[in-house]
């Protein structure tokens, strides 16, 4: 469309105005107040806050559990997407619908259900307790909750790519004598890897900020099982807004970095595919 092109469709001003007003009230003004509040804090205070032992420990807990959970979801997501796209079996539609459950089920409900399942008296917890493995109130428990939260991301990212993937290449590779595992590694995996990484990134970002499902199962022991969102929450409850904001900034920057990386890979990938 040319720059000088006159707008034919009416209502540009009105719809732009409504959009910007609503965006300002809900997103821009609150975000701006975060910026204003941050600007009033001194850099040394911010650094002092985020390098407290307890805060650093929470970063370690949050990042490591979110990373492991997203990794599990990346592998299981590829398997689930593969099964849902390539195979036919009874109950497939139900399985497909179930994937979306973590989006529909309130996180608090997921949290208490998983806690009661994996505690020493729970169905799964009692089984593992026999081997001396505790799940609830440990980092394993946090990881379990985060796996639950992250399930749909990788599946829903990989599924459309697999659907579009032409089986011709696999068949060609097969005819030329490649083994099935080699076909998967060298033909299929390179095609779905960017999508899987996108799903992994989205899940990782979501897991880093997750609160509802984790607070119940985590046990919230300082230094051991205390996640960063929980520290922000407790600073807020003590009306220490400066500390809460300083720690939140770290999480925000991490979230935006992840999003940036995901977008980078996505746009590079669509360029390759679009050619």
């Amino acid at each position, binding site marked *: 469309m040319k720059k000088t092109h006159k707008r034919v*469709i009416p209502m540009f001003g009105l*719809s732009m105005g409504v959009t910007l007003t609503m965006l300002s009230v809900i997103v821009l003004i609150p975000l701006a107040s975060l910026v204003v509040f941050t600007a009033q804090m001194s850099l040394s205070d911010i650094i002092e806050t985020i390098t407290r032992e307890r805060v650093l420990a929470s970063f370690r807990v949050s990042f490591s559990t979110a990373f492991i959970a997203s990794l599990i979801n990346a592998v299981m997501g590829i398997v689930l997407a593969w099964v849902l796209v390539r195979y036919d079996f009874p109950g497939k539609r139900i399985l497909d619908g179930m994937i979306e459950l973590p989006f*529909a089920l*309130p996180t608090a*409900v997921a949290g208490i*259900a998983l806690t009661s399942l994996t505690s020493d008296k729970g169905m799964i917890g009692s089984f593992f307790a026999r081997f001396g493995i505790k799940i609830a109130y440990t980092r394993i428990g946090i990881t379990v909750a985060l796996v639950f939260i992250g399930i749909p991301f990788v599946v829903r990212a990989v599924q459309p790519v697999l659907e579009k993937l032409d089986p011709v290449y696999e068949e060609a590779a097969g005819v030329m004598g490649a083994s099935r595992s080699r076909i998967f590694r060298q033909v299929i995996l390179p095609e779905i890897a960017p999508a899987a990484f996108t799903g992994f990134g989205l899940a990782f970002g979501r897991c880093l*900020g997750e609160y509802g499902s984790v607070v119940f199962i985590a046990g919230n022991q300082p230094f051991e099982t205390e996640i960063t*969102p929980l520290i*922000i929450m407790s600073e807020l409850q003590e009306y220490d807004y400066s500390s809460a*904001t300083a720690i939140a900034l770290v999480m925000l920057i991490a979230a935006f970095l992840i999003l940036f990386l995901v977008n980078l890979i996505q746009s590079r990938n669509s360029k390759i595919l679009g050619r």
Partner: protein
Amino acid sequence: MHKETFGSKLTKWVLIGISVLFVFIMLVLPLITVITEALRSGWETYKEAVSDEYTVKAALLTVEATLAAVIFNTIFGLFAAWTVTKFSFRGKKLLTTLIDVPVTVSPIIAGLIFVLTFGRQSFLYPYLEAADIRVVFAVPGIILATVFVTFPFISRELIPVLEAHGTDEEEAAALMGANGFTIFTKVTFPHIKWAFLYGVVLCAARAMGEFGAVSVLSGHLRGKTNTLPLHVEILFNEFKYVPAFAVSSILVMMAIVILIARSVIEYVGKKNGD
């Protein structure tokens, strides 16, 4: 297609087995747990917990916040999708990025920014105080937080559909003299009907279950600023497990209804070609 060999059949059923087992343990078992724990002390206790005064009040507040989120984000979604897809202007990329900010922010941080905007240390606070408006630890805060976390849910579903459709039909209608409202209702909306409904369902699902952001802004005043998920938290932390799971079962049923609605909308939408 090539013939299935014994090896590929084995792989197929092993992978299906792993998938089903994974979904069963991670997704189905928690649902079953909620129901069995809720009914542990019998039907009478369950009914008592569900019809408890505070539960009912929490349910009403959840419905209120969900409705507010759906209505507000419907208006925003329709206008934003129309603006972004029917016109070309500078800064469009920035606009779509900003619309997506709420879903990338941790719910706790979402709560925090509203506390900073409307709380005691905000420059707005004296004016709000003078007007006798309370946002933090009050219902308006809960509604704002819910709207925030679901903000892009409807526009996000509409924009790709409208983008794929282009602007030819709308331009033709405009040249023939139709006004904006007519163009929207007669030309544009029929194309996005299903995507719109889909967005509404996703928005409602997230809104009714929002926990973190609402938790920051609620102050947990029982009967006043408690939503269903917060009520679940309080009961659970008070070791009232049966009532906690009973209240959860309401949310589980709502989640199942939403999942079914989602599948039906997706199915019908695909069948009708959009």
